[in-house]
């Protein structure tokens, strides 16, 4: 009779232990990196508390408010577009689908600055500088470039691509049998979509919205180029960090960075808790 540690089952447990330890080591290292970043910021502020008094809070509160509003609008718009686009790509076959699929990923792979530059050119030089889209909006008494709509549009352009990808995956995993059954129970295709597909994919929609919101919060390059970083006007939290660094106020930049972490954590946790309750999980 062999000792437990040398039995095949014992060796299996030993291998499992090594495998699980490997998983935890890698997870722990990454968690440690994130926590170290936050800890370093907190330590930096704690060492220079006196300089915090010099931080001008008015523009920071304005940027926090604008960030929350624009991120929420961008996330809602992203979901509004991502749900039907995701459904279309997942459920239908059409000529040029691979190309459409690739085009929808462009905002994910392009450098953010290029997105901002392209938005700037689209609005101010198309079809011509004299008769641009921006001039059309101006004639209606609206301004897009270097104004709040530009912040939303810059956030939406990138965030929506992530939401679309999430929704395509969601619908790929949702059996078309649900729509089939709904249609035999009296639904048209549109009714099956609204009454069955949308509620059945609620978790995916929530994930897409959360991802879009988080992506919009972190957006910087396109906002800087297309909306500018004007204090008290188009300044959002990511641009506040940039503006504080550019005037040498590292403490202010670190405080806003930590606030971004706090805001993101609160919103993401709230959405997940609310989402779980909504789903009765």
């Amino acid at each position, binding site marked *: 009779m062999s000792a437990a540690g040398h039995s095949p089952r014992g060796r299996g447990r030993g291998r499992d232990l090594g495998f699980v330890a490997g998983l935890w080591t890698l997870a722990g290292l990454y968690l440690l990196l994130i926590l170290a970043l936050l800890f370093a910021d907190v330590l930096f502020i704690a060492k220079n508390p006196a300089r915090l008094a010099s931080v001008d809070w008015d523009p920071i509160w304005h940027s926090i408010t604008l960030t929350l509003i624009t991120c929420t609008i961008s996330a809602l718009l992203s979901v509004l577009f991502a749900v039907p686009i995701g459904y279309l790509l997942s459920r239908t076959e059409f000529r040029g689908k691979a190309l459409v699929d690739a085009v929808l990923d462009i905002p994910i792979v392009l450098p953010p600055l290029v997105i901002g530059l392209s938005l700037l050119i689209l609005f101010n030089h198309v079809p011509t500088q004299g008769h641009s889209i921006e001039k059309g909006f101006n004639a209606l008494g609206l301004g897009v470039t270097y104004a709040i709509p530009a912040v939303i549009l810059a956030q939406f352009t990138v965030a929506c691509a992530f939401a679309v990808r999430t929704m395509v995956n969601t619908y790929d995993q949702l*059996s078309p*049998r*649900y729509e*089939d*059954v*709904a*249609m*035999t*129970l*009296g*639904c*048209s295709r549109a*009714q099956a979509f609204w*009454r*069955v597909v949308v*509620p*059945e994919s*609620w978790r995916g929609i929530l994930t897409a919205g959360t991802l879009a919101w988080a992506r919009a919060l972190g957006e910087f390059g396109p906002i800087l180029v297309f909306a500018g970083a004007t204090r008290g006007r188009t300044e959002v939290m990511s641009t506040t960090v940039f503006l504080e660094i550019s005037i040498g106020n590292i403490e202010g930049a670190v405080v806003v960075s930590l606030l971004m972490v706090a805001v993101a954590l609160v919103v993401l946790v709230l959405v997940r808790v609310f989402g779980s309750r909504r789903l*009765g999980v």
Partner: protein
Amino acid sequence: MIELRNLTVAAGRGPAAFRLANVDLAVPSGAYAVLMGRSGCGKTTLLETICGLKPALGGRILVDGEDVTDLPPAARGIGFVPQDVALFSHLSVRGNLAFAPKVKGMDVSIVEELSQALGLDQLMDRSTDNLSGGERQRVALGRALAARPRVLCLDEPLSALDAETHEDMCGLIQSLARSQRITVLHITHNPAEAERLADHRFTIAGGLVRDQ
């Protein structure tokens, strides 16, 4: 009554694609028909085409003498219980049973009648995630019957059940179909199940449907 006249359907995909051609089949009103055949022979595709979920390449489908070939699934009066039952998990058992009456603007009192007939009255407020295999089958059956179909298509509805539940469900389906005079088309691999249920038996093999 359901009749298939010269019906042709495309089944399979890619290199395994084939046609079930010139299918002629007739099941009288209120009769119970069982369709048998090997996996991949086109049984499910034929059922999906009858329900209007896949297009017919040719031929006609008639329900009680009415040509429904070009009608959308919602207008055919044909109920469908798929193999994986596809219960709506965002709705309770009651919500699933009441789905069709609400969509069609029908009287929802049928929900209570069906819940008693199917033994679901204690489960009505439960989530569909917390049901056993037999309970899920009963909910799927009730959901389809609540639409008051003229024909009911069942795609291997009893294949995942244990022997006792299987026997109970056989009796339940048969008695409900008879009491409501619904014509049933039932796919199965199980010869004993076919023997137990069938008034009419059909076999699909080599792209042909044979009346046994």
